[in-house]
């Protein structure tokens, strides 16, 4: 246990000011020893990091913001957009235009979701399955004779990123540029959701590119999501600002989250051969395994909101205008939610979790994300059932960061017998 992380978390324990008549105040210990989320051992032992946060309390002060850590509080925050607004909650991403639909509240957000949801529904994404399987097999094929790979660089990143670019309608040959923009913007964020000291210059570059793209693509027919969105008419027609704000968000979400999930999920499977063998022996377990892996490792585990009025969360007073983050990875380990929440178990009968969010902002891409993960875990284990982390490799989660993923996961496996 890294001592520094434990110490700084101790300082995050709420002052139990039971003498205060109106309830306990959440105290930021900035003066003596500030809780720095950067000190948490997420990179090396994220399970421990989430336990340390859970032990710190149900509502904790973090870098001038508030973190809620129990399943009940996360539900409260994410299901009450009137009190916990999204409007200013994503300012840290430095987008010149508000992100559609993420940085809106109902009823405006409801209109956006009504327009967008059919494009991302199971009925729209299911027909992609055969193509996704052949794309993935094409990525795995050259690895079979090599007996080693970097799972992140060769599968977890390229597969969902190429899929997203084609699905949404962005030029595939710009993949490196999109990844640089995405990494710059998300890399400037941290778990607190607070404004970064140095907002990412990539935000302006991505915005400028998208503003030009939206102009270019208006009126041009195409069967990708962006073309169809730009050609909507009547009440559903989107303004340039809406289309740009939406594309900005989709680039960030589409290029980061599935890659992050796959990287952390495969690392967990590589470290737990008995669980991996279960998937090899019984591929019908894969959907349940996906839910469990995503429960344990949400790729976007800190969901911010800003309070519109003074409010209470549990016993804690939170003033108006506070940034409150729902800590999904901690809430998913809440003992109130399931037995043995710290264990990985592909046979859970009840496994409702918050990794795709809750309430009106539920992850729009969740159906595409689940399909991509299904294809990867099924095809990989069919073709490469036996693998382990390369000797000497030390895969680490990127940290501090507002979204999570492993940047390099070297795997070794028996070469194909000819």
């Amino acid at each position, binding site marked *: 246990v890294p001592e520094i992380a434990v110490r700084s978390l101790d300082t995050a324990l709420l002052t139990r000011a039971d003498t205060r008549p109106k309830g306990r105040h959440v105290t930021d210990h900035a003066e003596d020893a500030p809780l720095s989320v950067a000190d948490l051992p997420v990179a090396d032992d994220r399970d421990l990091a989430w336990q340390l946060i859970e032990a710190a309390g149900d509502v904790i002060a973090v870098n001038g913001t508030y973190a809620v850590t129990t399943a009940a509080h996360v539900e409260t925050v994410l299901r009450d957009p009137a009190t916990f607004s999204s409007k200013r909650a994503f300012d840290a991403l430095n987008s010149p235009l508000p992100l559609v639909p993420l940085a809106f509240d109902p009823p405006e957000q409801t209109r956006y979701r009504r327009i967008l949801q*059919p494009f991302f529904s199971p009925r729209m994404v299911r027909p992609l399955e055969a193509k996704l399987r052949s794309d993935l097999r094409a990525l795995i094929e050259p690895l079979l004779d090599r007996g080693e790979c970097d799972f992140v660089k060769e599968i977890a990143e390229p597969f969902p990123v190429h899929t997203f670019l084609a699905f949404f309608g962005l030029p595939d040959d710009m993949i490196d540029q999109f990844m640089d923009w995405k990494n710059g913007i998300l890399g400037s964020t941290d778990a607190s959701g607070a404004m970064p000291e140095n907002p990412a210059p990539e935000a302006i570059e991505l915005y400028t590119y998208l503003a030009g793209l939206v102009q270019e693509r208006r009126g041009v027919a195409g069967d990708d999501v962006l073309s169809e969105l730009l050609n909507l008419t009547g009440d559903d027609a989107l303004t340039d600002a809406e289309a740009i704000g939406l594309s900005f968000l989709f680039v960030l979400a589409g290029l980061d989250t599935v890659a992050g999930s796959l990287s952390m999920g495969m690392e967990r499977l590589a470290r737990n051969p008995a669980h991996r063998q279960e998937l090899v022996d019984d591929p019908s377990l894969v959907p349940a395994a996906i839910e469990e892996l995503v429960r344990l490792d949400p790729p976007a585990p800190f969901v911010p909101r800003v309070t519109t009025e003074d409010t209470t969360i549990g016993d804690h007073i939170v003033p108006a205008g506070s940034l409150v983050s729902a800590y999904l990875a901690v809430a998913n380990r809440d003992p109130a939610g399931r037995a043995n929440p710290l264990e990985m178990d592909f046979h859970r009968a009840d496994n409702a979790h918050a990794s795709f969010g809750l309430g009106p902002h539920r992850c729009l891409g969740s159906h595409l994300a689940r399909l991509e993960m299904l294809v990867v875990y099924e095809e990989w284990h069919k073709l490469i059932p036996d693998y382990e982390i390369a000797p000497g490799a030390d895969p680490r989660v990127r940290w501090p960061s507002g979204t999570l993923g492993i940047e390099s996961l070297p795997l070794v496996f028996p070469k194909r017998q000819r």
Partner: protein
Amino acid sequence: VKLAISPACMGHGLCYSLASELFEDEDDGYGTVRRSGEVPSDQEDLARRAVSNCPEGAISLS
């Protein structure tokens, strides 16, 4: 017994993935009950599983 989905449904899609005998998806991805929510007696366990796995607690069984 009968299943119902409340307006708290946000279209996560767990119900029709877990229990396609009892639920189906609409064009926009929201779940809807089959057979007006009637649950065949041999599928009551499955119905209970759908209820407990809904992330929004939007499914009820009566």
